[in-house]
């Protein structure tokens, strides 16, 4: 190899001497400037502390509530990392105020609504639901919110709207795992058929255990659909869109055979893992294993939504 002579060094590689001298003279100022920039990045966008919610009890009241510490330390929120202990560690960087939800698509009331306005729309109820993950475990969690349908009604969806699509926040700056998670640039997407979204069981959720949601649980707003596997209950929602066709959903895109669009809890359909049983978490060292119920035990209220559908095909 020939050694490069001085003239061959492109000028872009040489920091001009005057700039260098300038820098050395002003090094102090320069560094101080860096400090201010870093400071600005960390400026007090006040951290949002968990606040109490005035939630009134309802008829949905399963016993044996899972300890709150277990519910907030075991989360699937892939934008914050693949392990279930990652979200608790990494989600604290997410800012949940100010927060707005954009409503668009086939709807009369296209708008952007502020989270604090939305929370005042209806009285907050507490509902103790069973939460069943497709990984084969379940928890019993008191969620605080009101029926999603109550909010959707106020938006006047057009008759052509057949499905509702939800989008989770997508911000690489706040979500350290988002780029390696397989979630596309639109953000984690989930969807429900209109009648599922309007069903009174489907809960627009702002809190759990009587206080606002922890970031790793999907603060400040998520949906809970208790008769479906957990991934159908999207977190940290920034956009709700009304559409006329079955929307694309993240897990279905990643692995369609394993994650159907409906994904109703069903012990006899198991494309990915056996779903006959579940481990009920929060019961000491030995697993408490119980048989999984169709529709997660909410069949009396929701089975009619699927009358005439073959649940093996539409799973």
């Amino acid at each position, binding site marked *: 190899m020939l050694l490069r002579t001085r003239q061959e060094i492109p000028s872009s590689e040489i920091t001009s001497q005057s700039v260098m001298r300038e820098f050395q003279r002003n090094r102090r100022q320069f560094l101080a400037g860096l400090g201010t920039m870093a400071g600005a990045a960390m400026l007090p966008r006040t951290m949002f502390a968990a606040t109490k919610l005035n939630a009134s009890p309802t008829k949905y009241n399963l016993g044996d509530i899972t300890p709150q510490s*277990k519910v907030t*330390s*075991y989360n699937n929120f*892939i934008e914050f990392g*693949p*392990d*279930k202990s990652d979200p608790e560690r990494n989600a604290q960087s997410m800012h949940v105020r100010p927060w707005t939800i954009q409503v668009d698509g086939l709807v009369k009331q296209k708008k952007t609504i502020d989270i604090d306005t939305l929370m005042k729309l209806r009285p907050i109820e507490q509902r103790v639901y069973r939460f069943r993950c497709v*990984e084969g*475990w379940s928890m019993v969690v008191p969620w605080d919110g009101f029926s999603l349908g109550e909010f959707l009604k106020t938006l006047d969806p057009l008759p052509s709207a057949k499905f509702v699509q939800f989008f989770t926040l997508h911000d690489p700056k706040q979500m350290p795992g988002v780029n*390696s*998670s*397989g979630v596309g640039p639109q953000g984690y997407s989930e969807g429900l058929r209109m009648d599922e979204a309007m069903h009174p069981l489907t809960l627009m959720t702002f809190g759990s255990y009587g206080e606002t949601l922890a970031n790793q649980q999907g603060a400040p707003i998520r949906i809970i659909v208790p008769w479906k596997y957990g991934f159908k209950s999207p977190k940290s929602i920034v956009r709700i869109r009304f559409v006329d066709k079955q929307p694309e959903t993240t897990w279905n895109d*990643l*692995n369609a055979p394993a994650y159907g669009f409906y994904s109703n809890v069903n012990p006899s359909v*198991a494309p990915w*893992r*056996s779903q*006959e*049983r579940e*481990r009920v*978490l*929060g019961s*000491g*060292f*030995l*697993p408490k*294993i119980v048989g999984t119920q169709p529709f997660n035990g909410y069949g009396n209220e929701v089975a009619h939504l699927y009358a005439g559908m073959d649940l093996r095909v539409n799973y």
Partner: protein
Amino acid sequence: MPGKVIPWLKVVVHLLCLLPLLKLLMMFHSGALAAESDPVQFLTHFTGLWALWLLVWDLAITPVRRLSPKLSWLIRFRRMVGLYSFFYATLHMLVYVFLFSGYDTATALEGIRAHHWGVPWQQLKLIVPSMIDDVKQRAFIQVGLITWVLLLALAITSPQRVLRAMGGKNWQRLHRVVYVAGFLALMHFWWSLKKGNNAPAVVSIVFFALMIARLVWTLWQKRKKRARMVTA
């Protein structure tokens, strides 16, 4: 490495290999295991990971030994580390059978306490059909089971007496399935996770690097042999 040091080193390696088990026992005793959100999931991952890493370190012994004649004593630890890998793989499988599958461990333990020795067995019979279903339907469980059977074959044939009875050639042929076991264990790990979870990446890279090292060494030996034949 003088012969006097080896026995002491063996004790050290034994202790190192037992550290993960010690950690589990301590976690169990202190209640930290029960405090895990999902103790069963934790145990499954923990035992599986140690089985796999010990297998990979075991596969590292030969390539490292070839780096220098001074390292030839490392061979004395190969069987031991391999057996520990099998030990953790066995724990991994027991966790699946008794804690993951739906086996009613609580009832079985009550039966044992009351000296009704048939109870654990009855509980097992209750769960076997669904376990067979699970194995039939899930490729990743099949792969895991095959891996364990291969490691079992290697463990059974590990004593010197067996080696002598089999004859070196046959024994070596059989023990080459360790490479297959390593590969299948990785497959089992990848398939057990959801898409997008790249947790097995590091251990996979190490495994393939070791396999490539072996391949390079074999090719190099062949070339040397040919060169010798030409000059002879």
